């Protein structure tokens, strides 16, 4: 007998429909899966057999062939366990064949016959456009974002059999608790002193400008960076969906309601490989940290310790907002709209510039050489983060809270949207001409900075965008003034990495 159950698998951050065809016939008992399954998918046999037997159903001692169509798509993970199980039950006449006509299923089976959640449930459910969709109870919230009330959350394989063969109603599954109301974002009010760095964060958040924090260890670079997502507005519905899809595909824990509403914050360790950062894998393309952080903040602590090739791999995604990763046979485009925040010490000992620096010129040079100029050039706002002074540390007065800053940030972001760009940093050359006209004095200042060699042509464009954000934060006047340009240049001056000989 032949049975067919609709399901789907994960292909990058997208789902792909898979028809699970199960053929049960007489012959020596055997079980074969064909159709490009990966290892975890191939192991389905043992899980499905145990699950069927634990559910008071019987495993047909016949020749079983499972075909996963279309065969050209690589099937990954254990999400096909449930459809394979259902297919076997139907093909061995334990449940009615026709009951599977308008059902699709995605889920992993436990040996006890329970359904388990699988990574990437949202993109997988997204492609199952009609009929009821059976998922594990724990996946119910996220799956509902894609299939709405067509979702049938189930706890055990036996429950499905009861519904389709005995006509029992679908079991009621309690929706998971909403625990995302507690937003665990640290607040800027905890930061003492650090006047420049606060503004650096605010400008970066408001204009979407990539930020570089340089300073000695213990200055609070990481602490500051962690407070950046709290300044960003909630994700738009489209962005929230996109981020949820990516997080689902990357097997990152989603909030209880399923939808990621706050901008993500990702801080990969500096030992991260190229595949971990931009995405990849063997034979398939998993989203990397830059995609997981899309619409949020990607924090690279100890920038100087990242492998230079990995950092260079970020250049194209930072420029285009998407990352294209190719592996043999697959090419995937993943979102990569991140606000990059990098932190580094000025030199290996961390004291760079001050008289207590113990680094020789060559070690300082080696340190600075690890970071490519083009990557540094994309960090438009730079602040030096010093260890706070003791008086600032003992100051009882809390700083301005994140919520107040976030209001200003949201206002500037709305202005950018009215100019037709996501953020001021994303304004292209023509949009900048319109949105950031320079008054005559500002033109002179920018011109002089170019003549003096303090700015490159690219740097001048970036300074203009940052100046736009600074003016927006001030009074949102139409033209860019000389003082806005000066401030923007001030936030662009790099410390002498590697000393003056470089």
């Amino acid at each position, binding site marked *: 007998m032949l049975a067919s159950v609709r399901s789907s698998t994960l292909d990058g951050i997208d789902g792909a429909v898979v028809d699970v065809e199960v053929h049960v016939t007489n012959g020596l008992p055997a079980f074969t899966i064909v159709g490009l399954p990966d290892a975890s998918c191939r192991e389905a046999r043992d899980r499905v057999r145990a699950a069927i037997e634990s559910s008071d159903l019987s495993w047909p001692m016949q020749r079983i062939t499972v075909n996963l169509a279309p065969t050209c798509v690589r099937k990954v993970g254990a999400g096909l366990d449930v459809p394979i199980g259902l297919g076997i039950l139907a093909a061995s006449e334990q449940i009615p064949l026709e009951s599977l006509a308008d059902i699709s299923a995605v889920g992993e089976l436990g040996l006890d016959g329970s359904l388990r959640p699988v990574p990437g449930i949202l993109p997988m459910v997204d492609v199952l456009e009609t009929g009821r969709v059976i998922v594990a109870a724990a996946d119910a919230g996220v799956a509902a974002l894609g299939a709405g009330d067509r979702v049938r959350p189930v706890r055990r394989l036996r429950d499905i059999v009861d519904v389709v063969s005995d006509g029992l109603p679908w079991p009621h599954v309690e929706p998971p608790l909403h625990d995302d109301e507690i937003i665990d974002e640290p607040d800027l009010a905890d930061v003492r*002193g*650090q*006047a*420049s760095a*606060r*503004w650096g964060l605010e400008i970066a958040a408001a204009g979407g400008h990539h930020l570089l924090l*340089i*300073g000695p260890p213990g200055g609070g670079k990481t602490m500051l960076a962690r407070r950046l997502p709290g300044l960003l507005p909630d994700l738009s519905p489209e962005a929230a969906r996109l981020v949820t899809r990516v997080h689902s595909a990357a097997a990152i824990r989603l909030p209880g309601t399923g939808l990621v509403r706050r901008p993500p914050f990702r801080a990969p360790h500096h030992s991260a490989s190229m595949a971990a950062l931009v995405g990849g894998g063997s034979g398939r393309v998993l989203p990397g940290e830059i995609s997981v952080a899309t619409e949020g903040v990607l924090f690279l602590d100890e920038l100087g310790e990242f492998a230079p090739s990995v950092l260079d791999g970020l250049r194209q995604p930072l420029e285009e907002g998407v990352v294209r990763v190719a592996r043999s046979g697959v090419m995937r485009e993943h979102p990569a709209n991140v606000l990059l925040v990098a932190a580094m010490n*000025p030199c290996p000992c961390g004291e*760079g*510039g*001050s*008289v*207590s620096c113990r680094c*020789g*010129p060559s070690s300082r*040079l080696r340190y600075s050489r690890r970071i490519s100029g083009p990557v540094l050039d994309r960090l438009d706002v*730079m602040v*030096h983060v*010093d260890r706070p002074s003791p008086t600032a540390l003992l100051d009882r007065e809390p700083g301005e809270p994140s919520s107040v800053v976030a209001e200003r940030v949201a206002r500037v972001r709305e202005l950018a949207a009215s100019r037709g760009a996501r953020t001021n940093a994303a304004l292209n050359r023509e949009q900048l001409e319109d949105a950031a006209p320079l008054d005559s004095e500002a033109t002179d*200042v920018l011109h*002089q*900075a170019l003549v*003096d060699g303090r700015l490159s042509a690219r740097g001048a464009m970036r300074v203009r965008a940052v100046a736009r954000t*600074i003016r927006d*934060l*001030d009074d949102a006047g139409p033209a860019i003034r*000389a*003082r*806005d340009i*000066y*401030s923007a*240049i*001030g*936030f662009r*001056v*790099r*410390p*002498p990495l590697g*000393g*003056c*000989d*470089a």
Partner: protein
Amino acid sequence: MREDACAAVLSGLTGATPLRLHNLLQERSAREALRAIESASIGTEVAPTDVLAEWQREINRVDMTAESARLDELDAHVSTLHDPVHPPQLISDIDPAPLLFRRGTLPDPSLVHVAVVGTRRASSIGREVARELGLGLAEAGFVVVSGLALGIDGEAHRGALLADAVPPLAVVGSGVDVVYPKRHRDLWEEVATVGALVSEAPLGGRPEPWRFPARNRLIAAFSDLLVVVESRHSGGSLLTVEQALRRDLQVMAVPGSVRNRAADGTNQLLVDGCAPARDVTDVLVALGLSEVAVATRRNEPEVGVPEPEAVGTGASPMHSAAGIGDSAAVVGRTAVVLDAVDDGPTSLDEVVDRSGLGVIEVYAHVEELVAAGLVVHDGSRVRRQY
């Protein structure tokens, strides 16, 4: 056989110390010396017999035409003590240098030579002082002598080149064709083209550690005065000081902060009785020029100093010598910010605190002051610039 190629070969012989070469060349030309070694007619007053035998073997293997071609290709020259262009200071020196490779044109020996040396691991302020000294001395008509090393030496050369007046003289430890440190390739070429670059090491001579004390002796031998800008507790520049003292040169040291490790050696020199060199004027006064004379000399066009107007377009903030006059022109809140910036490096947060203004405003005024050449902002700190 070309005389210069012969000299080049002699310098490359194993164990050819300056003293041995001096004895060898005292009464012979380089060509005659080579012949004499070949025919084993050199006495043991020059070198022990085993060394002479080794020299004989080495000379037999030498390709003289290749050596000549190499010199021509580099546009390098070799002079011996018989040569009229050989620097007279080196012949009369207590450790004479009988043989010298050079690229570029040696400065007129009648000009006053001032050595500006210091540590390779210099502080940023040290570098700046070195550059200003190089600039000021060259503008005042002195030959700046240094070693082209990283840090102070390189900056002294850079300053001297910036002056566009008297070109500098670099004494290096490796062969004139072996750029060391590699990072100074451009500077090396510029000094060799505009000024002069000399070395005792043979062509292709590696920058081996033992060559540098000998190089330091040459720096001392060339110079009439030595200024140490920054030196660590037991830095190599102190060897140059020793060589200078053996030659009765006046040694000056730039005072540094007591917290600056790079200035430990120079501060010790001051304790030991060196004259302090706070700026170019101190050095010029030590050379016997009164401050008035310095001022007029600086404005004399025939010394090769560019007219202030010619450089006043702000191409380099260093040229805005009238800094104090300019700061009087700063008004309003910019002046408040300028008041909050002091001579020591100050963090921008401190400037914000002191001025009581907003961060964005402070950043704007600081950059305005940077553009006016009154303040230096290195990305982490700001300080006054005069």
